[in-house]
């Protein structure tokens, strides 16, 4: 009887602490779903795009590794931002008449699988509209470029170029046209961008944050130093002295918060636990954004709040000089064809030294401007026939009927000069151009604006 009573009061106390300590229990039950560890961020048919300047239209204002993805929106497969309409009750689409002139429902393709927060609602005309957390999703008719919000396209911050409907925008040296760019038209209060990041509906303890960790291909928990947190399946054991896993310790006076409780450890240390999984950092992660512990131990994985979709025929290889890179399933490094951008500091050789710019990836598309010799050794990384766009992955049809994988809007390629996993013998290979004609009959076209003489470069694709 004594044991039973003890158990009863312990359980009651735990429940009371959870209820009083947090609003976060809504994250577990708000939408009638049980919390899930590292769910997929997007179903097939839903994309992800960084908003605003992180699209990389602006040629000159960012230096090495400074292209910050402050916001990542859920999008259509063509990259257009998705919105929710606040007055809509869950499960019902009420934007009609005048509202419907500017906001168009994003419809579900037949046969699309829905899961987790993703669902569909049936509209009055019988069509099915995507919904996230029960809220129907819309596009805005004035959004013509990925990264736009309420018709405000980040393309106007870049060099002179055509926007998504073929109108010239931007201009000036190094995107200095932005100085004259019109200010954003604010989003009406009753509309919200459907954001994948930052994550706003989750409460975390002091000292823990939620950040995008590209190397972990997801949005994950990090500690107060910015290091990626990992979660153990099972109860913690006493770590060996040389263990690479360091318990994420909680203050002795800390209380459980939402999905965060404490793991019982044999050494008495109070260790944070997320969804019942004890949390750790990994000693080889030296900088924020590192996730070198991923895959090291089958029992320990990145404490992801959501994970990005990764095709089954893609792997991540750890390389000696450039950290994690995307690779084929058998380890062949994947590359993107990128436009050269001059950067003070010369950070091109650094990992993420020339940050991917989705706008440039779209400019270049599948046309790598390869001559015959180049085409012999560079090959499109083809997607299976049944592959579908999802998250940061898209598919570009090729003239021969095949389909090429596209990641973060860059078409992906392999290089014959790579023989073993981790080889990057095609990285940083440049094709430069300028004209020596006094009266050229046609102008050079590398597909994307450049400050001076243009160049295309083969660059490793990084997560």
């Amino acid at each position, binding site marked *: 009887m004594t044991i039973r009573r003890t158990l009863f009061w312990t359980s009651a106390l735990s429940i009371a602490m959870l209820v009083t300590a947090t609003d976060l229990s809504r994250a577990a039950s708000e939408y009638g779903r049980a919390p899930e560890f590292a769910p997929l961020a997007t179903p097939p048919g839903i994309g992800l795009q960084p908003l605003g300047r992180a699209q990389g239209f602006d040629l000159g204002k960012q230096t090495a590794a400074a292209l910050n993805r402050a916001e990542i929106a859920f999008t259509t497969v063509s990259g257009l931002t998705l919105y929710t309409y606040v007055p809509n009750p869950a499960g019902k689409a009420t934007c009609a008449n005048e509202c419907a002139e500017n906001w168009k429902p994003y419809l579900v393709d037949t046969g699309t699988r829905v899961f987790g927060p993703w669902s569909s609602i049936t509209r009055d005309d019988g069509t099915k509209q995507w919904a996230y957390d029960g809220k129907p999703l819309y596009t805005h008719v004035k959004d013509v470029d990925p990264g736009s919000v309420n018709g405000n396209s980040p393309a106007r911050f870049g060099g002179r170029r055509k926007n998504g409907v073929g109108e010239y925008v931007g201009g000036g*040296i190094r995107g200095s046209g932005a100085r004259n760019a019109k200010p954003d038209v604010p989003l009406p209060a009753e509309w919200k961008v459907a954001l994948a990041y930052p994550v706003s509906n989750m409460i975390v303890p002091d000292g823990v944050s939620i950040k995008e960790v590209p190397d972990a291909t997801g949005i994950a928990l990090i500690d107060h130093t910015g290091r990626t947190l990992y979660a153990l399946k099972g109860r913690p054991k006493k770590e060996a002295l040389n263990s690479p896993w360091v318990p994420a310790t909680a203050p002795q006076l800390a209380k459980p918060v939402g999905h965060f409780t404490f793991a019982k450890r044999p050494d008495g240390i109070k260790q944070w636990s997320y969804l019942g999984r004890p949390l750790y950092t990994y000693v080889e992660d030296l900088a924020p954004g590192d996730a070198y512990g991923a895959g090291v131990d089958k029992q320990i994985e990145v404490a992801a709040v959501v994970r990005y979709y990764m095709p089954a025929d893609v792997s991540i290889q750890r390389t000696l000089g450039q950290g994690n890179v995307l690779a084929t399933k058998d380890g062949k490094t994947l590359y993107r064809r990128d436009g050269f951008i001059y950067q003070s500091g010369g950070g091109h050789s650094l990992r993420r030294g020339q940050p991917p710019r989705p706008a440039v990836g779209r400019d270049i598309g599948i046309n790598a401007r390869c001559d015959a010799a180049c085409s012999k050794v560079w090959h499109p990384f083809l997607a299976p026939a049944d592959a579908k766009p999802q998250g940061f992955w898209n598919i570009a049809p090729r003239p021969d009927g095949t389909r090429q994988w596209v990641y973060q809007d860059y078409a992906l390629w392999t290089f014959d000069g790579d023989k073993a996993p981790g080889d990057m013998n095609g990285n940083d290979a440049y094709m430069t151009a300028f*004209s020596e004609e006094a009266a050229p009959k046609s*102008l050079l076209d590398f597909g994307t604006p450049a400050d001076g*003489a243009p160049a295309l470069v083969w660059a490793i694709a990084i997560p």
Partner: protein
Amino acid sequence: MRSAAALETRSYVVSYFGQAAYSEEGDCPGGINPTIEEQYLKNLAALGYNGTEIEAFAKKAVEEGGNDIERLMYERGRIDGKPINPYVYPETVVDPKLVALTGKYAYGFDLDGRGVDDPDGFTDPETKEAGIDNQFFRAFGCVRPYRGSLAGRPTYWAWAWGQLQDSQPAWLITLSGEDLDKDGEVTVTFDRALEHLKSNSDGSPRHDVSYRIDSDPRSHNVFRGEIRDGVVNVTEHGNFRMLQNPLVAPELNLKSTHFRFKFRRDGSAEGILGGYQPWREIYFAFASGGPAFEVCITGDIVGLYYLLKRNADADANPTTGQNDDISASYQVEAVPAFAVPATDIQRKAAVGG
């Protein structure tokens, strides 16, 4: 290539790399080329602006900044009378006719073997050898950012190295021979490291640091050489290829590579690397930076184009007759290091997917 009997190996990490300059008083006919501000005013005249208009531009530039002039300069090319980017289409701009150097001395090597009979030959101020081919120095030697000496580095090259040394994968030089303190055969190997140059807290290069050798075959160069009186010289003059950084040039490619390298008492070393370099690769490095480069550091980029093209001295194109390569020499400084092959053992297995 078979290595010389390698009983001793010494490795170095390059701690400075830039054009080898030897500027002297009076080595430029009519004086040094104009500053970029002065040159821009001349370029306005070439575009057809009259004296009064140019004076008004200059006055406004002094009082309010040079945006108006710069905007015109950024589009000073002309195709059918329409403005065009001059860096992409340098031939659409009237040659500003920057002057080249006429001095007697330049560091380098007698690449073409013509010796004293070479009408363009310099004399090396260090070795006193005549017939030195270094047309790159001749081309840029009267443009301010490229004037200097081995001790007083030219502004452009000092700036470029300052930009790159903390980010560009370091270059490694390994010498192998029977006894590197004695005269004899030596194998000289150039590689690229996975790490950038490590510096002390005062910015000086750190000695005796270990660097991993990048296995990328593009940046692996082996030459046979010899040591005579404490100076290493490459004796088989093949091609040199090293990945660099697009800030200076995506790659450094040389033909007929020459290299001399002498040991200093403190264990460091210095030398000259020379050969024939594709001049278009040099031009691209300047042209890719466009207007920001031109105003801040390089000087008139179109002027540099014409200087390079006029002074290129090797590998004439059979169709056009234009020389494709230009003789060039670079200053190399290096400190002792340990060069460790980045072996397959270090590779880690796939970590996810």
